[in-house]
């Protein structure tokens, strides 16, 4: 019991400091590294809560794939220069953002303080009790994913496909820096009847 408290407090400190590091670092690379610390501490918290599979997935997917992808894009674009955090682009932006954050935090904390554990209402063990009948965590999650939630699982497969197609379309290299031009008609690309000196051009293009 005491171990759970110690693990929670250590990881909570790492989560909070990492989160502050994400939003307060001048350099985006430092933000990404702070994000790694936060996500890793959350993975440990998942372990502390008894979600072993989610802890592994958190490390593999988030810190292993998503943050690396963000860092890869940073290096690709060369945007690892310091941001200017001194000037405030919109007057009062930070004050208003801080107020919004405090309102969100305060309202949730108020619910927790006033309601206590009664704040979380709902029927217990509707889908399946955790560790029911000697199921392991991963075994239980897999069964639920492919029985109760199988339709949602199929939908997420479609979502991932759409995301991949969208990413390819969005990051396609345009011919110039202007908005992507209309596709040219085929007759402008050498499929027109050969007349005059036109063949010489195509030979030159094919030569190199």
């Amino acid at each position, binding site marked *: 019991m005491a171990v759970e408290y110690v693990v929670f407090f250590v990881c909570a400190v790492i989560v909070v400091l990492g989160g502050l590091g994400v*939003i307060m670092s001048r350099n985006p690379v430092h933000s990404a590294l702070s994000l790694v610390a936060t996500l890793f501490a959350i993975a440990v918290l998942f372990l502390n809560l008894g*979600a072993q599979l989610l802890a592994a997935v958190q490390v593999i*997917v988030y810190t292993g794939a998503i943050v690396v992808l963000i860092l890869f894009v940073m290096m690709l674009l060369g945007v690892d220069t310091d941001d200017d955090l001194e000037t405030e682009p919109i007057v009062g932006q930070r004050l208003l953002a801080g107020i919004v954050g405090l309102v*969100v935090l305060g309202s949730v904390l108020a619910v927790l303080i006033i309601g206590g554990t009664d704040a979380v209402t709902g029927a217990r063990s509707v889908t399946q009790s955790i560790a029911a009948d000697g199921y392991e965590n991963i075994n*239980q999650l897999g069964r639920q994913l492919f029985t109760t939630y199988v339709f949602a699982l199929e939908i997420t497969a479609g979502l991932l496909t759409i995301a991949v197609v*969208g990413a390819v379309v969005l990051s396609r290299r345009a011919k110039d820096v202007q908005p992507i031009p209309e596709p040219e008609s085929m007759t402008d690309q050498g499929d027109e009847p050969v007349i005059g000196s036109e063949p010489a051009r195509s030979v030159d293009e094919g030569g190199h």
Partner: protein
Amino acid sequence: MDNLELAYLALGAFLFALGGVGLLVRRNPLVMIMCVELMLNAVNLTFVTFGKMLDDISGQVIVFFVLVVAAAEVVVGLALVVAMARRRPGADADDLRLLRG
């Protein structure tokens, strides 16, 4: 034990608010994406805690779907950043208007 679970919920709320403030304050689109990740992780932590408090495995199953949505969001967001930075290097959030077709 119950106090510890409430502490998890409070930590999730704090992380959510922190990510929201960062999303509102920062101008760099990459940092904004990272702040969205913070918010999604705060919700994940809350879901797992709810699942434990209600003794239901669904809290952990939903985190899987949040993970998939987060991955899709990052992929599309980074593609937008790449498309924007190609038109103007060092672009910030205001330059997203460059992408208007």
